[in-house]
């Protein structure tokens, strides 16, 4: 957006401070195409000309941003997702998803790597994100914000909820300790019982070809998820790829849809 930069009004005319001088340089002006956001016009431009803030409209209804209305839970969930992305990338520098090194890499992290808080931040951030996503959904329900025209955004939200849980679940395996593999074993054992598609699921034994069972421990959905009959090396690699690439990419795309829809559906809900 082409705008004419305005010189910021300084308190004492004739004695521009250091900050004011910096703001007057060509470099600064090339980045921020508006003056200091203390006039209506510049405040509008601050939002409009910034790709990140541009998620927001320029003006919002006061009822929509009241902390006691939204609890800022959606925003906090998104922030926690960003924290997970940053700490997750740092963890990826040190962690190799193979059975012989995964556990040792995690141990290294806690013992020898500087800024060893990354794993803690990542784990507690993940737990916190699960909590805030539930509370966000609770808020949206209690304010009836899923009612028309926001029905579809609620559906997008439910998928985001599922993705959040799956992100957390796939990450749970990566430390490759007893806690990890047995929690994932218990969780993925459920897939064995999927109707028709798990080898212990209702009806699976009816699917036969020339008397051979089609759905066995070596061909059911659990096998597809784990890449084997139990939680082993293949499962570790699969969960790593799902956790670090596949699910986050889908989640980011859906979040973009979610935020876009909040605006297109008329901003944060309010009484008619």
């Amino acid at each position, binding site marked *: 957006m082409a705008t004419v930069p305005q010189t910021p009004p300084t308190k004492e005319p004739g004695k521009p401070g250091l900050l004011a001088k910096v703001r007057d340089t060509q470099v600064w002006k090339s980045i921020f195409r508006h003056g200091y*956001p203390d006039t209506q016009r510049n*405040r*509008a431009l*601050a939002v409009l000309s910034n790709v990140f*803030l541009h998620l927001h409209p320029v*003006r*919002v*209804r*006061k*009822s929509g*941003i*009241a902390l006691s209305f939204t*609890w800022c839970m959606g*925003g*906090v969930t998104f*922030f*926690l997702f960003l*924290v997970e992305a940053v700490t997750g990338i740092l963890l990826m520098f040190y962690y190799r998803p193979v059975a012989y090194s995964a*556990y040792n890499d995690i*141990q290294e992290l806690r013992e020898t790597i500087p800024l060893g808080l990354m*794993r*803690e*931040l990542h784990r*507690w951030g993940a*737990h*916190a994100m699960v*909590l805030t996503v539930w*509370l966000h959904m*609770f808020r949206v*329900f*209690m*304010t*009836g*914000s*899923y*009612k028309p025209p926001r*029905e*579809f955004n*609620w*559906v997008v939200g439910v998928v985001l909820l599922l993705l959040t849980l799956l992100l*957390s679940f796939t990450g749970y395996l990566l430390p490759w*300790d*007893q*806690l990890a593999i*047995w929690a994932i074993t*218990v969780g993925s054992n*459920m*897939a*064995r*019982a999927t*109707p028709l598609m798990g080898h*212990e*699921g*209702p*009806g699976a*034994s*009816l699917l036969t070809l020339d008397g051979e069972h089609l759905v066995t421990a070596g061909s059911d959905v659990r096998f597809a998820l784990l890449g084997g009959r139990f939680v*082993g090396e293949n499962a570790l690699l699969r969960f790593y790829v799902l956790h670090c690439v596949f699910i986050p990419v889908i989640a980011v795309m859906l979040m973009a849809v979610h935020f876009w829809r909040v605006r297109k559906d008329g901003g944060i809900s309010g*009484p*008619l």
Partner: protein
Amino acid sequence: MNTLFEYILKPVMTFVAKPHILLPASSVALVLTLKYYRTVTKPKIAATIGLVLAGLLVVSCFDPNFKKNILKPDNVPIVLLLFGLLFFLWLSLRRAAINDEAAERGEPPLEARMKRESVLVWPDLVMIELICLVLVSAVLVFWAIFIRAPLEEPASAALTPNPSKAPWYFLGLQEMLVYFDPWYAGVLLPTLIIVGLMAIPYVDTNPKGSGYYTLKERKFAITVYLFGFIIFWVVLITIGTFLRGANWNFFGPYDKWDPHFQQPLKNINISEIFWVKMLKQGMPSEWYIRELPGLLMAGAFMLLGPLILAKTVLKDLFRKLDIVRFSVVAVLMLFMISMPIKMLGRWLINLKYVIYIPEYFINI
């Protein structure tokens, strides 16, 4: 003081924590809260309730077993969840009470009074976001400094820990495994939860209560949602995390998880009750005859259930909704009701399965 703790508080809490007491008790508490929400949410009363619960938590921490269980690193979020949920339940019901009282005086809700004003995103909203961001970061950093992420022994496929627990957010489903087989508790119920949640905006055709807190105008929808979320999700997670030890046996909040404790299992199927206990004869060998009583009961539940619902609890809804929407609501409700029914069956007559067809892994 100590005797009070040992001889009154501990036995009472251990009794209340038993699943067959805790689930009905928390359901009653929820119903009462929703019925008397205007009184319960008055700041003084709500603060008292909160302080009493927090006090119980603090006092209980004098017990080493309780403290160990609560402070296990991965269990911390559940304690946060419980208190966070209570706080936000209070906040939303309090706002609902204020708005509902205003509506009775013919005034618009709080949100409508604020709505007319519009503000600039910069600085008003950006400031709020910044403050939230700083607060959340601070909490997270403190959490990370004071509680280390757990790391147990290296993974070993040969050493099965007892109990083996799923991650904490799935423990409600794992707790349902006490009452149902994996295909029902681990596959069907989660699928229905997701589908059911997605269906909410399309089956709730009540135009009122959009964009502001209210309870009076949406009593049915909010009651069902809170039952699902609080009782069947959060309370079950709490039981699964804190009260289930070795072999998924129940242990009170102050008990040590004794790995050798075995509860005698003497659960019984409907078919056995019918053929052996009532008719005093052997079990028929063909599964479709053997399971006929159970199949009839389940069939009646799914077919007559919607009719009964239409005449009773869902009478108003039946009048307002078209047949497709009503059927979706009725079916989802029946599956939700199937959980407490099976639980009651277990607690009252040691019911194991209504339908037991191991030939095809169809056990309900």
